[in-house]
């Protein structure tokens, strides 16, 4: 008998945390991971764009500024396919709670902003299992900007500079991330995201996430 009631039919559970860069995903994921481990479950975390070969190819291509909107989408899809088959599915089959930092929704948001047809995108990812729970950390652009500038600085791609929105770096980030947020917001209802106010303090967000995850686990 399965340990949990999952949506995808595998032994394990699939929990996704979505949000743009600077929305606080990583912090919440490490907290959630520790909490689930404390309840004596096996946990595994996998991040977007971390497959062995393809992530390097993506980074290299980004650095050399070689990507167009289509190769961008397809490379990320290849990275995802590789991680799904080699990391995520084996863990789900073995009964792990798999926490994913970003999922197909990230691709939908970014690639739609880059002008792709949503039906084409959905086909690219149509074999992806349905997550048991998706948390979306909602943070307005102005706060994202402050967080990003204060930490990593404005990245070329995260600012959507490749699509020529504005020659001003700051402005480009604002427009690009604003468009991504719009896409995320549209998906809240469609995919049943649990949307959380990402501007709250991290402890409060953690509590809210744990309260939801408890419903999936027998604790």
């Amino acid at each position, binding site marked *: 008998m399965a340990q949990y009631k999952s949506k995808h039919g595998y032994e394990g559970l699939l929990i996704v945390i979505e949000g743009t860069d600077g929305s606080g995903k990583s912090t919440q994921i490490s907290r959630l991971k520790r909490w689930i481990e404390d309840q004596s479950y096996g946990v595994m975390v996998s991040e977007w764009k971390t497959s062995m070969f*393809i992530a390097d190819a993506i980074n290299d291509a980004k650095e050399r500024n070689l990507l167009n909107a*289509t*190769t961008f989408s397809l*490379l990320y899809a*290849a990275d995802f396919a590789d991680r799904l088959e*080699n990391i995520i599915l084996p863990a789900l089959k073995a009964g792990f709670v798999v926490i994913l930092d970003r999922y197909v929704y990230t691709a939908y948001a970014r690639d739609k902003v880059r002008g792709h047809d949503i039906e084409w995108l959905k086909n690219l990812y149509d074999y992806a299992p349905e997550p048991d729970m998706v948390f979306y950390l909602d943070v307005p652009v102005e706060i994202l900007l402050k967080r990003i500038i204060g930490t990593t600085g404005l990245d070329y791609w995260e600012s959507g500079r490749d699509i020529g929105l504005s020659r001003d770096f700051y402005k480009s980030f604002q427009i690009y991330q604003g468009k991504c947020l719009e896409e995320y917001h549209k998906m809240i209802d469609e995919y049943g995201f649990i949307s959380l106010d990402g501007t709250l303090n991290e402890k409060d967000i953690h509590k809210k996430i744990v309260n939801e995850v408890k419903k999936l686990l027998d604790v």
Partner: protein
Amino acid sequence: MKYKSRLNEPHNLPGTLVCVEGIDGSGKSTQLVILRDWLKSLKQDVIFTEWNSSDLISQTTKLAKKKNLLSPRTFSLLHAVDFADRLEQIIIPALKAGFIVLADRYVYTAFSRDVARGVDRDWVRKVYGFAVKPDLTLYFRVSEEVSLERICSNRSPKFYEAGMDLKISNDPYESYKIFQKRVNDEYKKMIDEYGLIEVDANESIHKKQLYFREKVKEVLAQKGITL
């Protein structure tokens, strides 16, 4: 809402896209090279592009193949990356500039090989939905036995061309024949689906070339170009 594939509609660009398809050893590359030289001798603007040759990703694909680490779906997507890169960088600009673009293998290679590897037929077609429809595609049909003789007269079949990743047979020669037959079967289905023109690869090089030139002339004539 249904996704509209560009592959089923004429491209309306000034240039002309001519593709050759078929399994290894079908003589398609030889035919394309002879055709290119002929077109050049007639002062036509011609460019040539080959499958899996973009410098964006071909190194990654090669490395991954060497290590036999990727699933058929991941490979399919990586080949799509390579194709998308060449399409945007080479093929479409050349078509806009009125060139005759000669492609040694096109999306039909993905549709036949990937499906032979177990990738969903409809899925892979949608993945390549951004591709431009060729003006002319010749499918050089050769049996898997003849292909094996030609390719492996002085070497054994390579891991992927023999489909050894599918673990059909431990014997590379046997595996090659089974796998390439599957690829040929997929090509056959595309003759009607995409209007590929079938050519018997057992004919002489000269006879095939004459036929190829006839077909190219027809296509160019439709665009008002007489050779």
